[in-house]
């Protein structure tokens, strides 16, 4: 598998132009998310200076918990974007997962565990189907996942009959509460979980055969195919993974939010996309999950500061759209048409 590993290495920034500090800076920026880190610190310092209590331990804890939720929701999205895919069904599966553990456990009188396993299996199958369809028929993932997301949320909503009663188990609320402690240490358990997931994702993407195959598929699908990577299997598994992660995030969100409604997942769709793209991960790679973590932290801090200054949910949405546009303009440019002829 050594060939695959080499194929997936991120291209080293070429410095054709003679010297220049700008070129060096751009090259560094392409390799490390320097701007994002600077922006994160700048926004936090600005917030701490203008808003009372932003730098307090409790507000940092809640920023971290919110960032964890956004970052975990962006887990599957990172993987798919690295592979050249895209997942529009995040919000649908989040709502599906949240509703299954809150409403359906009560309705059918099944235990939490059974409901969770059922939801995971169903989501995995639907995600796998989406990946298969995208790869086999060469259809834009956005359109296919738009459909599967609608199906997922619709099927669950039909079961709950539109009424959104029920609550999540108490331990789940404790797990996701910003005030909770992990084994007596003052860090919320969800943040610890996020750290563990971050390490696992980084190891998977950069140190395992599976991760290398994923990166190779994103970098050049045909070349990967010639290197005996079964790209269709990669697509299928990655989409299944994304759907399952979204369901799990839905379960966590049910605990965090307490009550569940059909719009619960909507903010997490654009947060997941924005976190990945702002982090600097490009369609088809290069990129990694650590960048997404930075993106999620930056966006959550920015949102918190802006809400502190009186911004509404609508403003937040406009801002996210603008930030994605700026980020793709910096990172994700295609070749010009005249170079493709």
């Amino acid at each position, binding site marked *: 598998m050594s060939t695959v590993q080499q194929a997936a290495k991120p291209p080293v920034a070429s410095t054709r132009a003679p010297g220049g500090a700008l070129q060096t800076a751009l090259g560094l920026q392409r390799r490390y998310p320097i701007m994002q880190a600077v922006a994160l610190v700048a926004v936090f310092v600005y917030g701490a200076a203008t808003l009372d209590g932003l730098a307090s331990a409790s507000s940092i804890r809640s920023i971290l918990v919110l960032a964890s939720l956004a970052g975990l929701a962006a887990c599957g999205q990172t993987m798919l974007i690295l592979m050249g895919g*895209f997942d529009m069904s995040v919000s649908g599966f989040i709502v599906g997962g949240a509703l299954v553990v809150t409403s359906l456990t009560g309705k059918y009188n099944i235990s939490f565990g059974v409901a969770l396993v059922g939801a995971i299996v169903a989501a995995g199958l639907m995600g796998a189907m989406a990946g298969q*369809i995208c790869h086999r*028929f*060469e*259809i*834009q993932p*956005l*359109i*296919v996942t*738009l*459909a*599967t*997301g*609608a*199906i997922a*949320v*619709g*099927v669950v*909503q*039909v079961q709950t*009959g*539109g009424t959104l009663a029920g609550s999540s188990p108490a331990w789940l609320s404790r797990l996701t509460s910003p005030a909770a402690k992990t084994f007596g240490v003052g860090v919320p358990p969800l943040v610890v979980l996020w750290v563990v997931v971050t390490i696992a994702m980084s190891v998977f993407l950069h140190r395992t055969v599976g991760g290398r195959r994923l990166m190779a598929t994103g970098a050049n699908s045909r070349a990967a195919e010639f290197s005996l990577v079964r790209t269709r299997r990669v697509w299928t598994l990655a989409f299944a993974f994304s759907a399952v992660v979204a369901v799990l995030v839905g379960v966590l969100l049910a605990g965090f939010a307490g009550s569940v409604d059909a719009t619960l997942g909507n903010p997490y769709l*654009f947060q997941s*996309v924005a976190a990945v*793209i702002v982090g600097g991960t490009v*369609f088809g790679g290069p990129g990694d999950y650590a960048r997404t973590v930075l993106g999620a932290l930056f966006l959550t801090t920015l949102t918190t500061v802006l809400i502190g200054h009186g911004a*509404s*949910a*609508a*403003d*937040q*949405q*406009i*801002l*996210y*759209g*603008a930030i*994605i*546009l700026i980020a*793709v*303009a910096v990172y*994700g*440019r*295609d*070749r*010009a*048409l*005249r170079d*493709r*002829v």
Partner: protein
Amino acid sequence: MAIAVPVRGAHSSPNVRKLLRTYSFGFALVLALALLIANLLTQSSFGWTEQLATFAPLAIGAMASTPSIISGRGGFDLTISPLMTFISILFVSWLVPAGLGGYVAIPILLAIGAACGAINGLIIVGLRVPPMVVTLSTYFIFIGIDLKTTPTPVTLQGNWISDFGGSVGPIPGALFTILLPLAIWGLLGLVPYKRILYAVGSNDATAFSSGVNVSAVRVGAYALGGLFAAIGGFAITALVSSADAGTASSYTLVAVAAVALGGTSLAGGRGGVLGSLIGAACIYLLQSLLNAVQINSTWLQVMYGVMLLIAVVFGAALTRAQKEAR
């Protein structure tokens, strides 16, 4: 002397295939007619005027999504649905209070719609970023603007626009809004633009080599979609007699499903606005049939999703079969 006719496919004979190649919406047309008959049989009072008014936003949303998809290379405009709502909001909460609620609003809003579409197109060709990323960003922006400007629905009373939801003389008013995009698309056939658009959609590198200004053609396709979306904005306003930010994302899924069902290839270069109209008719009639037999309305969302999946898979399989036959 009997000559054995070779049958190529087990399920699709060459004739059927050839027919579908020329009329890619053939399948949707047959389905739409069957559904229409089923609807007329099950519902004794099939009120054409109201039905057409309810159908109009969906139909126009589908037609508006078509030009960008035809332009190829992943061309796709997610913003059609929020843009329709945006136009409706502009009309109800800005133009009418400003005293511009008369017919003068028509050219203003059409121009704004086309400009919004053109901005999408300019960003796409200017930044050279995949259309779906750009329109996803602008989709967020438009929904945000819709929510910000109209946090609560604003009602509109006694305006000429309600004629489009009712009837103009004996003619259902919605026919005007539905047929206008179709007419514009038809008139475009008289100038070279439409041909060039299909050329760009089929293979942009070839079109570029032949001296086509590919970027301008693409921007034109998005502007055309924006123009149609503005007409859709009129249709929404006429239907609900108000401007409501809640409709901002209502037509996103159905519009794409209708386009795919209408035989427009999502890879670009094939299909047309008429197909999307027929695809939208299929979805609308199926929805109305399901309502008539009193199926839980939450199933509708599932149905849209399933229809979209079936349509894209069917369309892609058909395109592939044609490529192999060539």
